[in-house]
């Protein structure tokens, strides 16, 4: 007996994942956080312009990767929890607090959830900071990369990162890293979004696909 083909296209039964490349880097006085814009369900791209940089507070952003639903929900919940927290303490929350809230959810529900958020922002006490919350750990790093596309750029970021980079250096670093990863990873692509956060505010930028840096084979 021949197998019946499904009445629905395959991608409707695949989990929607933000395949992704995400990256965040701290500089003296702020952070730059960036991501690609592809959302895939199996082999289909269901959204080619999704902004994976989600604000948790005025000067704290997180970058989403892994299961789209899990990541978005985590970000929404932490956004709410941070609002409550900042009212309770009467001032802007610390980046570390935001990262801790994300970590608490990641760790408690680590069996059920499959999303990884990188938290980055600026606060008065410690300036620009980047935290990773993979699998429920909490660690501060000078820079962080995540998502399926990050495997391809480990070598690049290890080679290019130097201490004491300026804001502009960091922006170039983020855009170059995203472009390289988007070229190699099938689950990353589209446009590059990046947000620069410092004491003066947040600056959101988007670089279209054809304006991204090109490399020797393009």
């Amino acid at each position, binding site marked *: 007996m021949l197998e019946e083909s499904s009445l629905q296209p395959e991608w409707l039964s695949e989990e929607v994942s933000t395949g992704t490349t995400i990256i965040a880097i701290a500089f003296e006085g702020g952070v730059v956080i960036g991501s690609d814009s592809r959302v895939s369900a199996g082999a289909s791209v269901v959204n080619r312009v999704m902004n994976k940089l989600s604000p948790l507070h005025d000067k704290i952003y997180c970058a989403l990767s892994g299961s789209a639903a899990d990541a978005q929900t985590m970000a929404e919940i932490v956004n709410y929890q941070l609002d409550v927290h900042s009212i309770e303490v009467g001032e802007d929350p610390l980046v570390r607090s935001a990262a801790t809230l994300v970590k608490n959810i990641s760790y408690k529900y680590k069996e059920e959830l499959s999303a990884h958020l990188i938290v980055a922002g600026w606060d008065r006490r410690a300036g620009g900071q980047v935290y990773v919350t993979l699998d429920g750990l909490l660690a501060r790093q000078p820079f962080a990369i995540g998502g399926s596309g990050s495997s391809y*750029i480990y*070598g690049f970021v290890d080679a290019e990162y130097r201490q004491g980079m300026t804001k502009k250096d960091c922006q170039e670093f983020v855009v170059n890293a995203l472009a390289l990863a988007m070229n190699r990873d099938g689950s990353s692509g589209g446009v590059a979004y990046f947000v620069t956060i410092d004491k003066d505010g947040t600056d959101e930028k988007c670089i279209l696909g054809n304006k991204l840096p090109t*490399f*020797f084979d393009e």
Partner: protein
Amino acid sequence: EIPQHSLPVIPDSTTSLALSGSYVSNKMINKLIQVHDKIFCCIAGSLADAQAVTKMAKFQLSFHSIQMEAPPLVKAAASVLKELCYNNREELQAGFITAGWDRKRGPQVYTVSMGGMLISQPFTIGGSGSTFIYGYADAKFKPDMSREECLQFTTNALTLAIGRDNVSGGVVHMVVITEDGVEHVVVPGDKLPKFHDE
């Protein structure tokens, strides 16, 4: 005369560790096999399969070069490997990078993948550690680099891959093949370049 370019062979990133399961059985193994005077192969995957295939290829190439009364083309060497990989694709688990110099086309690099695909590229990377350096290689490669630049590029790329891949490490072997001959360069682990986190 063919313009001279030296072409360092970029060994696959499982530099010189040989594993059985998760036990490191050899830290000094050389994964660059010479299949003819100016043609070398980097091996990846099952070392037993790779060694068997390259032995066969070496024999076939030396026979071929006697019949043709000339050194084999790099493309011919790559083709021989490809035939062996493709025809025995079910049983074999090995991939190769073939690189060398011949009179007709000068320096060339060919990839023979595990299933038996053969393509020519300006440069190539392979092995488990290679995923981590795609970004670096794409960003830093420029066509027509000098010998020193090529060696630096290769050493840096391998060092970065070793830094991130837990099954790559040991000693870095490189071979520089030019019209004039073949030169081996060996860099032990402690002489590799250091990056920001070391």
